[in-house]
């Protein structure tokens, strides 16, 4: 994974950050040597230490410079990696499309895309350069001490090697507990969120106290689990302190004894005094960096899982141009993952160019699956779907979807202006085109009544629009897209009675001259369809025009009777 994070362009940046860290270490080593010499000079009864003092000051200036540079070089390094990962992950999510998105919990994917990738700051920006700098720096300083005195050098080396090995060892011990803790954490998070979002309901049913007590129990258990895990994790803190202390004590003790035995000069011992601390400094920094990036590896694994999910293969055949195409389903069968029952079973339908076909049937009959397969949100498990005679799998996804406009029952509004939302499929639309489309969709009046008209910010954190208003935005959007094939998915479901006739006219305008599939629930809206196809259990059970079907007194007549009974 480290290799995949460090693309060639990023490697040099990381080398730069590691270089800055090494420079910091070097200034500390230089400072240690100078201070040792100052001490030795004063011990010798002299005071000619001005140059050494000046040296320490110069090194400090250099070190402060390196520290300043590092604080911007590290975010630049991790920023490049993060931007790249986000592009790859979001790009893959878009390539995988809504069919894939339905499988995951949006909360989890969102936290991967934002927080998961943010861990790169700690991992690539801090931990990895520190690892490189620590290995080079600690080895260098230890080697120098080794030259001064092999015994002391050996002791320091042994301790320096032991430090990075400690977390490796503890990782092995902790992996299982860590995973269990992480699962418990996610559960606590999810349950809290669930309760907070459903608080109005909990309160209305006098269940909020009870749920609160349950959650307190969950939180209590989680807190106990965390403490149990942390008791082991923080052993490392003690371990590091012990090893550093041991190394320093042994080095100083042995060095002093060797000096007393005449095997070391006073200056050399003072150097050892000042430098053993410097040996361990990068190791302590590494430990802190490691602690700060502890959650990076599992988070980034989840990111790479998305990036590595294979996207559906695309063809290269261009779409047919000129006039609305025919849409044909030939013996199409489809079974969703993790479902036993087929959603579509040898479904066949030919929609002639410009024809308006309404799909009706109770929920679960397979109507929405027909639309999803046409858009290639999923690939059918059997059979063939063509547009203008071309198999949908032979075209590129972009080419295929460019031919189809969709008005669905849940229209998502993006954070941004009304204009941005309308011109989603046609970013270069002129104001005149925009207003014409909005007028035709019966949306112009309510849009101009908004505080900033077409420039009003809508979406999650902007103005909220009603279901009917969103629907009309979707219709205007589809009009602007001007694609030869149109899918209307329960297009008037969210519209209140007062607006229904207006919307119906807008939809008629929209459907004019396009090959149209209407997925309809309100039978009043399908009367104008050229053909009504009644579906049940993934099959076509009846087809014909409204009056003809009524006369047959079959499945369609029963649906109509049920609706009229309800109305």
């Amino acid at each position, binding site marked *: 994974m480290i290799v995949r994070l460090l693309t060639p362009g990023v490697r040099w940046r990381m080398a730069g950050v590691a270089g800055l860290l090494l420079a910091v270490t070097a200034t500390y080593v230089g400072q240690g040597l100078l201070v040792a010499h100052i*001490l030795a000079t*004063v011990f010798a009864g002299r005071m000619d230490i001005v140059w050494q003092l000046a040296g320490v*000051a110069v090194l400090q200036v250099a070190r*402060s410079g390196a520290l300043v540079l590092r604080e911007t070089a590290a975010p630049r390094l991790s920023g490049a990696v993060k931007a790249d990962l986000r592009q790859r992950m979001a790009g893959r999510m878009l390539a995988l499309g809504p069919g894939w998105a339905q499988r995951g919990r949006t909360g989890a994917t969102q936290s991967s895309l934002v927080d998961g990738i943010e861990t790169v700051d700690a991992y690539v920006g801090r931990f990895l350069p520190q690892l490189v700098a620590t290995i080079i720096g600690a080895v260098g300083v230890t080697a120098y001490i080794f030259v001064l005195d092999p015994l002391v050098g050996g002791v320091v080396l042994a301790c320096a090697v032991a430090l990075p090995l400690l977390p490796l060892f503890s990782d092995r011990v902790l992996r299982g507990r860590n995973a269990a803790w992480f699962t418990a954490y996610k559960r606590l998070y999810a349950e809290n969120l669930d309760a907070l979002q459903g608080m109005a309901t909990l309160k209305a049913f006098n269940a909020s106290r009870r749920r609160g007590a349950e959650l307190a129990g969950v939180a209590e258990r989680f807190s106990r689990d*965390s403490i149990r895990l942390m008791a082991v994790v923080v052993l490392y803190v003690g371990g590091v302190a012990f090893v550093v202390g041991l190394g320093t004590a042994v080095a100083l003790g042995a060095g*002093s004894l060797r000096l*007393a035995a005449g095997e070391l000069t006073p200056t050399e011992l003072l150097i050892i005094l000042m430098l053993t601390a410097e040996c361990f400094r990068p190791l302590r920094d590494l430990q802190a960096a490691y602690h700060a990036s502890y959650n990076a590896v599992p988070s980034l694994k989840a990111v790479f899982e998305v990036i590595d999910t294979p996207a559906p293969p695309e063809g290269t055949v261009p779409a047919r141009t000129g006039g609305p195409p025919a849409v044909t389903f030939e013996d199409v069968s489809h079974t969703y993952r993790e479902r036993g029952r087929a959603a579509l079973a040898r479904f066949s339908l030919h929609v002639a160019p410009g024809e308006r076909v309404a799909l009706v049937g109770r929920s679960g009959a397979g109507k929405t699956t027909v639309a999803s397969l046409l858009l290639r949100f999923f690939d059918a498990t059997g059979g063939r779907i063509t547009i203008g005679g071309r198999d949908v799998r032979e075209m590129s996804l972009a080419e295929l979807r460019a031919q189809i406009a969709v008005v669905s029952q849940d229209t998502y509004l993006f954070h941004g202006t009304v204009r941005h939302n309308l011109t989603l499929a046609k970013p270069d639309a002129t104001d005149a085109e925009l207003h014409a489309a909005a007028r035709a969709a019966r949306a112009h009046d309510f849009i101009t009544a908004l505080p900033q008209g077409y420039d009003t910010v809508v979406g999650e954190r902007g103005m909220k629009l009603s279901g009917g208003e969103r629907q009309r935005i979707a219709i205007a959007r589809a009009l602007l897209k001007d694609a030869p094939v149109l899918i209307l998915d329960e297009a008037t479901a969210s519209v209140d009675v007062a607006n229904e006739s207006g919307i119906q006219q807008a939809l008629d305008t929209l459907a004019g001259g396009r090959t149209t599939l209407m997925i309809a629930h309100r039978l009043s809206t399908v009367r104008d369809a050229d053909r009504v196809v009644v579906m049940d259990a993934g099959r076509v059970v009846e087809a014909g025009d409204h009056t003809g079907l009524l006369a047959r007194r079959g499945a369609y007549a029963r649906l109509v009777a049920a*609706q009229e009974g309800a109305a």
Partner: protein
Amino acid sequence: MTAVAVTPPRTSPSRRLRPLLGLVGRHRPLLVAAAISGIAHHLVVLASAGTGAWVVSRAVTGASVDDLRGGVIALAALLPLLALTPWLESYLAHVAAYRVLADVRGQVYDAFERLSPGYLMERRSGDLGAAAVSDVEQLESWFAHTLSPLVSAVTVPVAALTALGVLHPGLAVALAPPLVLLATVPSWLRRHAEAHGAELRARIGELSAEAVDTIQGVRELVTSGAGERQLQRLREQDRLLLDAKLAHGRRSGAEHAATNALTVVGLLSVLVTAAVLVNGGGLPHAYFPVAVVLAATTFAPVIAVTDVARDLNLVIAAAGRITTLLHAPAPVTDRVTAPPPGPVIPRVTFDRVTFRYAPHLPDAVTGVTFAIEPGETVALAGHSGAGKSTCAALLTRMWDVTGGAVRIGGHDVRDFPQEDLRRLITLVPQDVHLFTIPIRDNIRLGRPGATDSEVEAAARAARAHDFIAALPDGYATVPGELGAHLSGGQRQRVAIARALLKDAPILILDEAVSHLDTESEHEINTAMAEASRDRTTLVIAHRPSTLRTADRVIVLDGGHIAGTGTFTSLTTSALRPR
């Protein structure tokens, strides 16, 4: 309707730390123990560094092996403490942190309970809930990694200065100024730090919003061919985030460089003073390295805290938001502790009810007067914003009236404790929230003691039994996130079953406007008829079919009653768009 903005007030830093300390609660002893261990740790480090330097200088000044033995033994004796104290500090601080976090989660939950749904009404996607959960998470770094080092940073240098002063007062005098200066560094750029902290959070928020748009809007994006443009927007957000991080980095880099330089100023100052003293005979040679090493070590706890304190701005902001939430006044409070005595007749009356959501907003309803007799079904009709939902909210006391009174059986609803009031009323909301617990438990939410057969009976009456039985695990099925695997109509029927099982004398039905197919609509109408039979029912109606079956229809327009009567008696003009 407007939501009250959740922004922390701007105050001085010491006051801004107060909310954090206020959250500690009953875990204070643990944190005190952690802080003491932290102080002990730094003192042991000081002692051990001083002893090491003393041993070295004794050796340099020609001591024999025997002379050194005491020092070496002392070093060895300090070793276990050197390991034990930081472990203890870290362990205790983490224990305290996890316990405080569990407590704060409970407090946040209670605050939501108190404030919901009035205060939180506009936050429909639950982003406030998500923010609350992650804000609590932010506090971990404060309680586990910041608080106790902060205490050490204040106390340990004082001890080190004292030790230096014992060696020679001049040494303490030399070290004090840079130490004091060092302590002031974070305040130099505090204004910038706060601005950058706010900017950084805002940027992360924007990025999250783009991520949500990318994920939840994927259908629109791919069908509109707008994927590449969405990627560009993400790229732009990444660039802005990097800019914010760089600004944050430049500030923290400057602070880091300054603190680092000050430690060396302190070191040099002690070094020169000690050299002069040793040279003049004012200080024994053997103390010279000890003084230098002590000076260098003194800064360690201060440096440790400045390292973590650079991100303190983010933690304080999170704590500010949490305490704002915890201290927000409830929109409705109980003024009585017991309900009126005797049985309550389920007659609902609105008596010249006037209400506005905030003083600066216009009336949502004005002088609304009507009554619903026991067992009667009354439908409220009108365009959105006419005041329908407001009337329902006033009946359930999500808000209290500004003028007039809402009464049940002749008693003002404010003369019931909220829990007793909610026992009288059951609700089928427009947006049904299904919890990620088995369907069975979702249905018995209002009556946890209900048996499985009672749950099933309610589901049958709500026309929900058949589809529930057909689910993979039947009544034990856990609905997916946000109930995603159930259709809108199915969720409605689960909500009706929930209301039926609760069996309260008054029912509020907030009709869903969408997501219903023909058969579902038919089944829901049957289920609603079942639910409203023998109950005093208020329906917020959107469908003509509902208006037709109601005993009476009240048409609201602009917060006033525009007409009352049966569906047929009412002139259709009142329902037509204008």
